C-alpha cells in the first residue's frame, strides 16, 4: 500500500471513501513518519496514539456502514501544546506544566473531534507561546524541516514544522503577535490567524487575552478553509467569542479575485526588510494584479509604533494571566517554609528566561506610578493603529505585506538579544492589535532555498477574502511553476 502524497483534507476524504486506505492505516502511516522524523525536528512533545486510534476506529466504522462522513473525517491533525486536550498532557512547553493533564477539551479541540479529525499529538512551541523562534521551549528547540540549522519560527514552531514535514495534514496553532503567520512563513506553509472572537479561546491557556487567537496551519488554502469552518463560531464558554454567522469558507475561496482592491502600505517595505523578501512579495503582488486585482498604495502611519505598543500590552496581560502559576492548584511546586517563599521558589524554578522577562516587563508597566505612562498610553496608541486599518479598509478589500522582514534565521542567531527578536514582529503585530484576520501564504524561496511568506489582512470577519486571494494566488503560482 503506497498512500498518495501529499495528503490534504480533500485527499484524505476521497481515499477513505474509495476505501484505498482505512483511517486506522492512515493514522499508523503518520505515526510511522513521526517516529522517523521527530527525533531530528522535535516538533511533537506528546503523541496521542490511544485517542487517535479510537477516533480512527469511529471513522472506519462509519465507512463500513456507509454512513455520511463528518467534514474532517480521518484528517490527521496536530495541536499546539498550549491548547487543552482532555486526558492528554498539555505542557505549554514549560517546566511549570510538565505533567499537567487537562480534565477537559478546548472548544476548538472538541469541535475538531466531532468533525472526525484524528489527533496525532501535541506540538512544541515557545514557552507559554512567548517567542518568535521556538528556542524558548523547556523541551528544546524545533528545527526547521526546510533547513535544519534554522529556526522554524515561533511561537507555534512545532505546528508549522509538523505540517511542513508532512507529519500532519493540518495543525492548530495560536497567534498573539504573529505566532502562526511568522512560522508559516519560515516553514513554507499556509498559516491563518482568524479575527479576534472568530474562534473560541475556551481551553486555550491564556498568554494575552485581548490578543490571543487560535488558528491553523495547512499546506493549502482549501484545507485552511475546511478547518476554520469547523472551529469558528460562537461559544457560550468564551464571552469574547463572536455571535457572527460562519460563512461557507469553501465557497468563498472559490470566488474570483477580479476587481478586488489590494492595498500595499509603503510603511511595510522600508528599511530592515530583506531585499530578497521584498522582491518576492512584490512579485506576489504583481501576480495578483495579473489576476485582475487592483493595486492601491496605502499609508498606515502608526505602523512604526506597533512593536512598542504590543510589548507593553502583551506583557501586561501576561503578567496578570501567569499569576495563576503559584504551585497551589496544578503544575510545579517548589517547597518553601512560608507561602510566599513557596510562590517565589515555584515561579523561579518553573518559568524560563523569556517568560520571566515578560512577567517583569508587564509587572513594571502596570505598577503604581507607571500605569498611565506605559499601559494607558499604549491602549491609546492601539486605537490609532486600529484606526489605520479601519481607514485602509475604506479604500481596499485587503492589505498585502511581507509576513516577516527576513526568512528563517539560524538557531541561536538572535537568542541573546530579546529586543532584536521583538523587532522582527514588526509586520505581524499591527493586525494582532487591530484584531483583524491575517494569513501567510508561501510566495517562493530565496536563493538559499528558504521560504518567504506573503501576508494578507482583511477586515474583521472577512476570512473569506483571505481565502479567495490566497487560493487564486496559490493556483496561479502552481500554474506558473
Amino acid at each position, binding site marked *: 500500500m503506497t498512500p498518495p502524497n501529499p495528503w490534504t483534507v480533500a485527499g484524505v476524504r476521497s481515499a477513505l471513501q474509495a476505501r484505498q486506505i482505512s483511517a486506522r492505516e492512515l493514522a499508523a502511516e503518520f505515526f510511522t513518519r513521526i517516529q522517523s522524523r521527530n527525533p531530528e525536528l522535535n516538533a511533537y512533545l506528546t503523541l496521542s496514539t490511544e485517542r487517535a486510534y479510537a477516533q480512527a476506529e469511529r471513522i472506519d466504522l462509519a465507512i463500513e456502514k456507509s454512513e455520511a462522513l463528518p467534514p474532517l473525517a480521518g484528517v490527521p491533525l496536530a495541536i499546539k501544546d498550549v491548547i487543552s486536550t482532555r486526558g492528554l498532557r498539555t505542557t505549554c512547553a514549560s517546566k511549570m506544566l510538565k505533567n499537567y493533564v487537562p480534565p477537559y477539551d478546548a472548544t476548538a479541540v472538541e469541535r475538531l473531534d466531532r468533525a472526525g479529525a484524528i489527533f496525532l499529538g501535541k506540538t512544541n512551541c515557545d514557552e507559554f507561546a512567548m517567542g518568535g523562534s521556538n528556542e524558548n521551549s523547556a523541551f528544546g528547540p524545533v528545527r526547521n524541516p526546510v533547513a535544519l540549522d534554522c529556526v522554524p519560527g515561533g511561537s507555534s514552531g512545532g505546528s508549522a514544522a509538523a505540517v511542513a514535514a508532512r507529519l500532519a495534514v493540518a495543525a492548530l496553532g495560536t497567534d498573539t503577535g504573529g505566532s502562526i503567520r511568522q512560522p508559516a512563513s519560515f516553514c513554507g506553509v499556509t498559516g491563518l490567524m482568524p479575527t479576534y472572537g472568530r474562534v473560541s479561546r475556551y481551553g486555550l491557556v491564556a498568554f494575552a487575552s485581548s490578543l490571543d487567537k487560535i488558528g491553523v496551519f495547512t499546506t493549502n488554502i482549501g484545507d485552511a478553509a475546511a478547518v476554520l469552518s469547523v472551529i469558528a463560531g460562537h461559544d457560550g464558554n468564551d464571552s469574547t467569542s463572536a455571535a*457572527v454567522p460562519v460563512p461557507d469558507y469553501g465557497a468563498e475561496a472559490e470566488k474570483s479575485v477580479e476587481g478586488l482592491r489590494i492595498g500595499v502600505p509603503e510603511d511595510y517595505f522600508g528599511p530592515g526588510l530583506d531585499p530578497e523578501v521584498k522582491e518576492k512579495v512584490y512579485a506576489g503582488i504583481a501576480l495578483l494584479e495579473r489576476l485582475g486585482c487592483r493595486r492601491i498604495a496605502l499609508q498606515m502611519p502608526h505602523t512604526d509604533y506597533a512593536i512598542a505598543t504590543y510589548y507593553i500590552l502583551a506583557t501586561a496581560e501576561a503578567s496578570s494571566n501567569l499569576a495563576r502559576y503559584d504551585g497551589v492548584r496544578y503544575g510545579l511546586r517548589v517547597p518553601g517554609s512560608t507561602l510566599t517563599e513557596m510562590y517565589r521558589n515555584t515561579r523561579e524554578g518553573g518559568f524560563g528566561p523569556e517568560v520571566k522577562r515578560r512577567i517583569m516587563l508587564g509587572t513594571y508597566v502596570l505598577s503604581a506610578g507607571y500605569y498611565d505612562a506605559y499601559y494607558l498610553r499604549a491602549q491609546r496608541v492601539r486605537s490609532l493603529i486600529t484606526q489605520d486599518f479601519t481607514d485602509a479598509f475604506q479604500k481596499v478589500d485587503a492589505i498585502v505585506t511581507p509576513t516577516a522582514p527576513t526568512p528563517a534565521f539560524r538557531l541561536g542567531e538572535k537568542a541573546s538579544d530579546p529586543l532584536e527578536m521583538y523587532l522582527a514582529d514588526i509586520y505581524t503585530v499591527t493586525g494582532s492589535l487591530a484584531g483583524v484576520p491575517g494569513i501567510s501564504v508561501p510566495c517562493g524561496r530565496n536563493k538559499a532555498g528558504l521560504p518567504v511568506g506573503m501576508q494578507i489582512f482583511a477586515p474583521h470577519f472577512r476570512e473569506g477574502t483571505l481565502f479567495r486571494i490566497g487560493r487564486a494566488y496559490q493556483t496561479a503560482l502552481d500554474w506558473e511553476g
Partner: protein
Amino acid sequence: MKISREDVVKVAELAHLGLSAAEIDTYCEQLDRILTYIEKLKKIDISKVEPMAQVLHVAATPGAGESHPELREDTLLVCDVAEPVLAQAPDAQAPFFRVPRVIDR
C-alpha cells in the same frame, strides 16, 4: 537609565519571582533597553485618542434593541471535575489544596 537595580528587585518581588543576583543584573540591562525603545510612544499626540478597551469588533457586539448572545440562559450545568482537578494538585487533601501554614495559632 530607565530602570534601576532597585526597581528590578522591587518588580521581581511584586511578581513573586525569586530571581538570582545574576538574573537581576541581566534583566536590569535588558529591560532598560526595551523601555528605552518603548519611549518612542511619547512622540505621538494622544490627547484626543480614547484608549482601546474592547477588541471585539462592533459587528460582534449587539447594538441597542438587539439580543445579547453573550447572555445565556441561567441554567445549571453539571461541572463534576473536583476529582480530576484535585488529582493535578501538587498537594491535595480532598476537598482542599494544601499550602504551607499562613496563620500561626
